[in-house]
């Protein structure tokens, strides 16, 4: 019985992979891209241990490779299927790999209750209805979050925002050049030091650019 591929990341073809203890990772070249994968008989079970282990694998790759697109947990595919989707979405992958080159993800979580949105007023037209729907789907950005965004705008090559949920008011992800990570941290620390807010802020990173991996299902 053949083995399928458990995929950790997409990188450029031809690069030299680091050794990762406990993993027999290999490069599967597909045109100008390569999947970093491991041949397995079964998928990896979902657990805290396997999640942490996969995160470590991707972190190690990110440390050694210029540009990496992390793959979501559970990507267990046969080689033919992998080749098909990578080839089909090569443009989106090429753009994303260029974007993340020599950069890391920094994540800022604002702890607190997510801001409530006011219910949309009754729409008189279809256009108004669609605009109201789009507006209500956009994460509510508090003044504190806006202050942080402004503080790091010049250091961030890209930004992604996750709406609040549970005890998290909002999550900001920034793509930051590897050489500017310390300035990014300092900038946030300086900015929030004198602010009076009930929110607490947790900054994590640098980490692989998970939040900047392309959506291959909706790509063209």
């Amino acid at each position, binding site marked *: 019985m053949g083995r399928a591929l458990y*995929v950790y990341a*997409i990188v450029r073809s031809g690069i030299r992979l680091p050794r990762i203890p406990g993993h027999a990772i290999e490069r599967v070249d597909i045109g100008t891209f390569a999947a970093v994968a491991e041949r397995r008989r079964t998928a990896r079970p*979902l657990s*805290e241990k396997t*999640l*942490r282990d*996969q*995160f470590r694998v991707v*972190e190690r790759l990110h440390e050694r490779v210029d540009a990496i*697109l*992390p*793959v*979501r*947990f*559970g*990507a*267990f*595919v046969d080689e033919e*299927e*992998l080749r098909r*989707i990578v080839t089909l979405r090569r443009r989106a*992958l090429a753009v994303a790999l260029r974007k993340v080159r020599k950069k890391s993800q920094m*994540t800022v*979580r604002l*702890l607190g209750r997510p801001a409530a949105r006011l219910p949309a007023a009754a729409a008189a037209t279809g256009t108004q209805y669609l605009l109201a729907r789009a507006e209500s789907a956009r994460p509510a950005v508090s003044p*504190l979050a806006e202050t942080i965004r402004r503080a790091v705008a010049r250091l961030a090559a890209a930004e992604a925002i*996750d709406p609040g*949920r*549970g*005890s998290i008011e909002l*999550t900001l992800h920034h793509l930051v050049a590897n050489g500017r990570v310390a300035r990014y*941290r300092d900038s*946030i*620390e300086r900015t*929030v*030091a004198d*602010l*009076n*807010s009930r*929110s*607490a*802020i*947790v*900054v*994590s*990173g*640098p*980490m*692989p650019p*998970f*939040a900047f*991996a*392309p*959506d*291959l*299902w909706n790509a063209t």
Partner: protein
Amino acid sequence: VPFVESSEASLLDVIDSLLNKGVVLNADVMLALANVDLVYLRLSALLVAADRLHEG
């Protein structure tokens, strides 16, 4: 504003990154993980950290 920074990934970073982000290569993953609300089930570590911040 209480401020915490960490260069080591927290459990929340790990879960959020691997289950909610990253390139999706197979639709099975979407289906398998659609009902997994692990991110918010395992927030205890972060909440403890937040409580400490407020105490400080």
